[in-house]
């Protein structure tokens, strides 16, 4: 069906971004392919220590999921910060990724967690790491005939944790700044570090130098301080109504530091 429609067809998931855009005439697809009645896409499944999040998993389901606590804390903590409770009843995780709004929160949380998406078309299926999916504001590498069927999150190991910090002007608003962190420990050192930023660049992106600081320096106060400074350096915020660029860069540093301290305490079992 999408093959036939080409650029004129669009997938309709939660509709919480697409319908507002259509009303503003920013999007005017000739036809929508509503995937809401496709069975089997609304599950969060644990598999081999990792997760599979189906294309119709709503923000609300993530907020309520027990599976997302603890090791996948970054996904659990981001969910209730997306928009408002009514939008969360319909909006989907996969739809957020396909929408690729640089102010969207899911892409950062899932970048930090090292996720990839499974995209399917009549021609076949491919797996796209999230780092490669996002091309620019509201732009992805997805072809018009491809549907994201699920998001896959790799096994972070047994000693892992994460969280998401978001500055918003009011409940339900898009992020002024968002910071996602997700860290795995193994044999006393940092085995994996994910730090990703929201609303401070043309796309959501990983602060790789900050991640490296943790991989090299461990999970102590000093390395955390260094990672926070490097994350702030990586940010490219713009001054706008929500705050000046300097202010936003400062928020990135402080949020990264606080989030990492919180995760360090929780993976060390200090609550």
């Amino acid at each position, binding site marked *: 069906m999408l093959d036939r429609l080409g650029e004129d067809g669009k997938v309709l998931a939660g509709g919480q971004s697409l319908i507002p855009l259509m009303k503003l005439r920013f999007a005017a697809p000739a036809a929508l392919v509503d995937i809401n009645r496709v069975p089997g896409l609304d599950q969060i499944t644990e598999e081999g220590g990792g997760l599979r999040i189906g294309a119709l998993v709503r923000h609300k389901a993530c907020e309520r999921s027990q599976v997302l606590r603890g090791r996948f804390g970054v996904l659990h903590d981001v969910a209730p910060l997306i928009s408002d409770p*009514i939008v969360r009843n319909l909006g989907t995780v996969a739809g957020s990724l396909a929408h690729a709004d640089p102010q969207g929160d899911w892409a950062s949380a899932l970048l930090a967690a090292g996720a990839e998406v499974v995209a399917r078309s009549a021609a076949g299926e491919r797996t796209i790491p999230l780092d490669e999916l996002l091309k620019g504001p509201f732009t992805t590498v997805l072809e018009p005939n491809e549907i994201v069927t699920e998001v896959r999150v790799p096994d972070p190991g047994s000693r892992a944790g994460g969280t998401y910090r978001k500055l918003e002007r009011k409940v339900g608003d898009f992020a002024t700044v968002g910071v996602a962190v997700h860290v795995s420990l193994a044999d006393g050192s940092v085995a994996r570090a994910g730090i990703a930023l929201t609303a401070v660049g043309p796309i959501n992106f990983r602060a790789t130098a900050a991640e490296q600081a943790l991989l090299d320096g461990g999970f102590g106060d000093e390395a955390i301080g260094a990672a926070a400074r490097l994350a702030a350096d990586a940010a490219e915020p713009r001054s706008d109504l929500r705050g000046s660029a300097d202010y936003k860069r400062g928020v990135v540093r402080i949020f990264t530091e606080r989030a990492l301290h919180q995760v360090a305490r929780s993976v060390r079992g200090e609550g």
Partner: protein
Amino acid sequence: MAETEAHVQSIEVVVNGERRAAEVEPRMLLVHFLRGELGLTGTHIGCDTTSCGACTVLLDGVPIKSCTMFAVQASGRGVTTVEGLRRDGALHPIQQGFKEEHGLQCGFCTPGMMLVSAALLEENPNPSEEEIRWALSGNICRCTGYQNIVKAVHWAARTMQSEQASEGVESELAAEGAA
């Protein structure tokens, strides 16, 4: 591409318990279907930008913004609007609560507020103030300052719980009587 030309689609939605069949354009929003086609004008349009919650209805019991869903998407499903809150000819406790605690001034936001509150109480019969405020955070009120809205939800929660308790006692008494 015949299927992309303007055409109408048959839908069947159970609105407030009643089966309503109609022919609509696929582009018609659910809120326009409810207000324009069915005359259920209790569902308000505040912002039309998915921000205010005035257009909230329950889709199979779950609050959604009817300005951000197409009518065809509701086909085969159940929709509750504010007109459907009344039970057996009497006001729903949430409606009574808004009346008792002065939970409204102009009333524009009230249908959305009441539907979200009714759904909350289904799930959580005894919510804290924090839980009520969190649940209502997608609904904007320009008049009340929210204090009395929170009180109204508490009023309804207490009333529904004592109703249930007394129903429980009555059925126990009936069971004892039968024994």
